[in-house]
């Protein structure tokens, strides 16, 4: 019975030369994979847009993770390539009967645990800065409302108070996109802007984020922040832009067919320019 089952093919039947080449080919391709990865990630041919916010910890955490991950990645791929090449089937080669090694298991389990969890804990710093820290007291408030497929920006105006909003007051033909209550005096001086969010540089900004139809996501790559705008909720985020200029605000959560063209502009200006813009807007209202 046993004899019947054993196959007729043994190691000698495999073309030896082919095996040398195959092991070598895999090893070379894996080396190539590592080289290309290193070049792509260190050459910065395509990379983060320049940082324009006070969340500087993001880039540090990313680089730290990148270096650790790169080491793990390269070691693992090279080890794979090396083993495949070194231990290929050759004449006279015998596999060693090894069932495992408990010391090794404990060692690599604890090392990976420490590295992964360590990174995870370090990574919470930026998160805490973004989510747990209160916005500074001098932060200016801006309301951002996502809609298919535009960003509605609203400033509280001179009185510093947003007018009440309600869905039934939404009237797009009258440019009342967010439904400001016409009877609320606080809303009279509100300044609305579509797809252009003008803010002064180095000024903490508190954004009240929500959506009037489906879920959108407020993403400013240069600021290193992203937050979903969820219908039915007002989520508060805060940031400080440190460089003037115009930066794009893509929508990062699938919101329908126009998702790809839902484009806002974060327009960071000097305080003087910002005040001028504000005045101009107020006079137009």
């Amino acid at each position, binding site marked *: 019975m*046993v004899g019947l089952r*054993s*196959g007729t093919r043994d190691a000698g039947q495999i073309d030896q030369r082919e*095996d040398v080449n*195959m092991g070598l080919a*895999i090893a070379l391709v*894996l080396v190539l*994979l590592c080289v*290309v990865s290193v070049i792509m990630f260190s050459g910065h041919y395509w990379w*983060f*847009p320049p940082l324009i916010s006070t969340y500087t*910890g*993001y880039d540090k955490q*990313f680089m730290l*993770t*990148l270096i650790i991950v790169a080491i*793990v*990645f390269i070691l693992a*791929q090279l080890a*794979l390539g090396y*083993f495949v090449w070194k231990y290929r*089937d050759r004449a006279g080669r*015998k*596999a060693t*009967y090894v*069932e*495992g*090694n408990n010391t*090794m298991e404990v060692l690599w389990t604890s090392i*990976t645990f420490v590295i*992964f*969890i360590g990174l*995870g*804990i370090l990574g*919470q710093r*930026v*998160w805490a800065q*973004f*989510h747990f820290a209160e916005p500074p007291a001098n932060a200016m408030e801006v309301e951002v409302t996502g809609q*298919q497929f535009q960003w509605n920006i609203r400033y509280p105006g001179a009185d510093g108070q947003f007018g009440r909003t*309600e869905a039934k007051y939404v009237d797009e033909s009258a440019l009342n996109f967010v*439904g400001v209550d016409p009877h609320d005096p606080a809303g009279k001086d509100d300044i609305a802007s579509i797809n252009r969010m003008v803010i002064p540089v180095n000024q903490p900004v508190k954004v009240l984020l929500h959506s009037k*139809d*489906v879920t959108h*996501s407020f993403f400013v*790559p240069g600021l290193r922040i*992203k*937050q*979903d705008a969820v*219908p*039915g909720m007002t*989520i508060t985020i805060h940031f400080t832009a440190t460089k003037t200029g115009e930066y*794009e605000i*893509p929508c*990062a959560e699938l*919101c*329908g*067919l126009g*998702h*790809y063209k839902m484009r806002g502009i974060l327009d960071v200006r000097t305080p003087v320019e910002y005040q001028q813009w504000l005045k101009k807007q107020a006079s137009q209202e």
Partner: protein
Amino acid sequence: MGEPTHAVHVHHAPKGFIRKYIFSTDHKVIGIQYYFLALFSVVLGMLLSVLFRLHLAWPNANWDLLGKLFPTGMAGGLMTPEFYLSLVTMHGTLMVFFVLTTAPQSGFGNYFLPIQIGADDMAFPVLNMLSFWITFVALVVMVMALFATGGAPLSGWTAYPPLSALGKISGPGEGLGQTLWVISLAIFCVGSLLGALNFITTTLNLRAKGMTLLRMPLTVWAWFTTSILALLAFPVLLAGGILLVLDRVGGTSFFIPAGLVVNEQLVNHSGGSPLLWQHLFWFFGHPEVYIAILPGMGVASQLLSTFSRKPVFGYKAMFSAMLAIGFLGFFVWGHHMFISGMSPYSAVAFSLLTLAIGVPSAIKTFNWLGTLWQGKIQFTSAMLFAIGFVSLFVTGGVSGIFLGQTSLDLYLHDTYFVVGHFHMIMGVAALFGIFGATYYWFPKMFGRMLNEPLGKIHFWFTFIGVNAIFFPMHIMGVAGHPRRYSDASNFNYLSSMHPLHEFITVAAIVTATAQLFFLLNFFWSLWKGKKAEMNPWNATTLEWTVPSPPPHDNFGGKLPVVYHGAYEYSVPGAKQDFIMQDSPEKIIEAT
């Protein structure tokens, strides 16, 4: 169900074509049925992806032929954004549910789990047949969604409400198509959980004598763990699906909050929460990722051991890691929701748990390397795919270290970095598991060998191809390219990435074309391949002790008795370099 007692299984091979090949209760036929269902879905899913890749690389090119094929979606040869999103949605759904969930688990699992544990069939053969046909109905409904009037659904495979719940007013594709999509998923859930309970019962109750848990092949451990995940995860998606269907057709508002104005229409819903769906969906969705990849891990372990002629390095660590991944897999769903508006405190917990789940994954990688170490590696096509699996698993795994961190996810979430990550790991790594399993088990399933040179050509094209497709996506993610954009030309900062889009598309077309080598090999070998012996790979597990293909009751009426672990290769002092699991040969204890 006629007999007064079911105490003794008596297997008569069914007569007649329909009972034998269509409504068969034989687990082997059902396994093959699942495999072909997955094969159909993967070809369809791949074609859809090639279509949308074409659009991404050359958004303004005129594809007249395609315009004739899809008169609405590509009117005049130009792809509309809604058609693009429909393609993305259907590609994701088909691949995740009807390929990655069905092929490795329901397909190979059905065929080989009973044989590998020495059983003559599943515990519930009729239920098994039912599971397949329920899944089949789900696929039919899903394909109907693709061709539904008003367009195929376009809210992504995650179908976040309110977009997916509001109905027609939220845009094209959100009418009948989306409803069919949800119904198909609910049906799929039922089929999957029935299949899962069958697998679990079979593994626990029907093992042959001597097949202790610690002698089960790692493939069996993988299918078993996957089944537990499926049993506990699919019911939650089912609940979510029921609520979403009700929101769409029953007018309820589980996922729709008050005061929405969509396309200038005031929505008459109130009180619901979009986050509730995300919780329910991802509570299922994260275990689902492991449902896709765990069988691949099992197959990789099996192949690496067989073709290194060495026992699996750290067998106990291997199945413990699998169980740990399965267990922890239920604790990490929130990492899909870091920026969703979920409580940021929950996010911290989810983040640390997510990084913890990286540990058993790393253990598995180290043990695979340990299996190769000092082996005698034979480069069969199956082995090449297993080696490719390990490489892709590493590549896809390490990017998870970025995404698992709350802070780094702040930027990387919903960019191409995520797309690259999950395609590497649960997409192509799992697919490599399926390919490896196909090259390995094809002789057993169909009695003929696959052509090796063709298999190797297939491997090289596919391995280099998928790296070329998905590696650049990580770079695009770092550069901030959001996913699900049908056209990036509206944004200045994205325009520099266009060459990458073109490169990826070319790579995708080449890789997709190379799959013809596989299909050709598969169907040619089915009829013309070299006849397979009982044990062509000199492997040890029980499926290699029976003829290729196995008879109707697997073991010819007499169940095997098992004496050895699953991976006794190159045992010092043994007659051959492998000892079959049911061989009474004694092992001289190697110390």
